[in-house]
């Protein structure tokens, strides 16, 4: 049963299993474990990024394609849902229609990019996707009458997802059960299901072929695999999942804008999450996503605490200042690439073998 659910791709390391279980448990109970807006917001963001990073790993880790356009698909999902709700009102129909249109648009775009440009060398493909993503971002900002430009769009969501909607009259474990909780579990279930589905796909015969293509496309072609076809399908799959992640994120934030979905910073964050977690293993997406979002959210607070301890010490006080959190994060990037060249999951599995 568990094997089937995980598609025979078990964590293969005791410590890793424990951490994954811990994350699963934490995410499943986040709203009640720690009450408050901060915890639930962080947990939801972790969920969405796990899905987003997993979808990117299909490209990067499994197929060996470097694309800088992944946030574009994330954005398409976000804008699909956001604009549909903004213009059509806060109904489920609008959300569904927006997501469906975004999915169709995103996957078509992915197929086009794939068919047109997957023949060129890897680094050039990366640059072409960067270009396409840039043009898309410019377009979104210039069509500000529809998209809201840099300001993005805030919109309302269906009644049951709003914070003002009370599900239970009484708080449960000290947490008031509002529409936010409903929205959270909507995201949770959707992400869990999509993640397991992704796991299944990378462990299918198809997924094996992707790995072969990553390893040696020339040889794969000689075995009879049409490389461009496989790559294009992988691109579409990955894009579709990113669209869905974007749609969920918009639904959760009740806002969509270039900074939350399209910015190059997010692209880099995704890359980091993949690499820190470990490329070519979806569990890496879970670990990488969770760690990164936690760091992004709590590093500053942590530094705030640390800074009070070292206040007055000249240089250290300067460096540990909460406003310099990015400095610390930068150092952490470098260190993690240093010490986890195969990602955390890779490292754990290696140590299991030795």
């Amino acid at each position: 049963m568990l094997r089937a659910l995980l598609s025979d791709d078990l964590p293969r390391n005791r410590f890793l299993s424990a951490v994954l279980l811990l994350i699963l448990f934490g995410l499943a109970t986040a709203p009640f474990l720690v009450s408050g807006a901060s915890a639930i917001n962080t947990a939801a963001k972790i969920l969405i990024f796990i899905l987003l990073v997993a979808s990117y790993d299909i490209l990067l880790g499994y197929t060996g394609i470097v694309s800088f356009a992944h946030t574009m698909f994330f954005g398409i999902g976000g804008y699909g849902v956001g604009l549909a709700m903004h213009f059509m009102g806060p109904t489920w129909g609008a959300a569904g229609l927006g997501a469906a249109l975004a999915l169709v648009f995103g996957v078509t775009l992915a197929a086009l990019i794939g068919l047109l440009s997957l023949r060129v060398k890897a680094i050039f493909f990366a640059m072409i996707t960067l270009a396409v993503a840039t043009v898309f971002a410019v377009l979104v900002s210039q069509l500000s009458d529809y998209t809201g430009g840099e300001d993005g769009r805030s919109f309302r969501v269906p009644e049951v997802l709003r914070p003002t909607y009370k599900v239970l009259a009484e708080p449960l474990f000290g947490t008031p059960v509002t529409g936010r909780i409903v929205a959270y579990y909507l995201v949770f279930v959707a992400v869990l299901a999509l993640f397991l589905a992704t796991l299944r796909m990378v462990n299918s015969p198809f997924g094996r072929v992707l790995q072969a293509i990553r390893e040696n496309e020339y040889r794969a072609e000689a075995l009879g695999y049409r490389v461009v076809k496989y790559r294009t399908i992988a691109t579409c799959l990955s894009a579709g999942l990113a669209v869905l992640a974007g749609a969920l994120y918009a639904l959760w934030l009740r806002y969509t804008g270039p900074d939350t979905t399209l910015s190059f910073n997010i692209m880099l964050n995704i890359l980091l999450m993949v690499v820190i977690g470990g490329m070519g293993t979806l569990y890496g997406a879970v670990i990488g996503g969770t760690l990164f979002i936690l760091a992004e959210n709590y590093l500053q607070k942590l530094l705030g605490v640390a800074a009070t301890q070292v206040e007055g010490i000249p240089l250290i006080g300067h460096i540990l200042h909460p406003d310099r959190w990015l400095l610390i994060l930068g150092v952490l990037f470098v260190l993690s690439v240093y010490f986890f060249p195969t990602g955390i999951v890779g490292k754990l599995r290696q140590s299991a073998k030795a």
Partner: protein
Amino acid sequence: MSHPVLESRDLTIRFGGHTAVNAVSTSFHAGTLTAIVGPNGAGKTTYFNLLSGQLTASAGQVLLDGEDVTRLGPADRARRGIGRAFQITNLFPQLTAHENVRLAIQARDPAAANLWQRWTKHRAWIERAEWVLEEVNLQHQRDTVAASLSHGDKRKLEVAIMMALEPHVFMFDEPTAGMSVDEVPVILELIQKLKRAGDKTILLVEHKMDVVRSLADRIIVLHHGQLLADGDPATVIASPIVQEAYLGRAPEKETAHG
């Protein structure tokens, strides 16, 4: 005589000003092993590349089972039954020997592109891959990643991958180069077995004349991209042009050694 399985008509490729394969017309029949010999740079590998689709001809045609496949890519030709082992080892470096072979087996299965099945469900692939590894005497390296194999073992894996494809046209490009003397017979035996099956078309590029002599039904000689000689082994080897162009010495000396 039966239909040729594979045929090249005026097959030509030019790189810039250099014509690497020059209007080669010949055909290959089921049940025969044709050895292709010629000096270095004669165009043997390039000719293979044209037949299997790695390169597209500048002029001329390739016919497979009577159909024109000149414009098809390597994947499509592989699907139609062309198997190819490369001169310069061409593996999936970070995958194990077993996975390398399994991917070749999978390629023949319509389930290869299935998105939803678990690959672990395909016991048949796994078992067959093991069997193929045994065939080339590589079972002890089953779980070694290809990059860590010694050169000779890589050559064996290269052959194993082609065997796993179960093609009906086999193209060996110097299969025994770098293989140790005690391993060469394993490969030769394998090729013999294919020959005995009687319905396979086998092409072999090889510089070791003893190997060629022991296996070939027919030899063709390429020189400067052109077809220089074609015929049964004894005649071709004995012909003075071949002695001159390829072996670079008198025929007696060569036979004396054999």
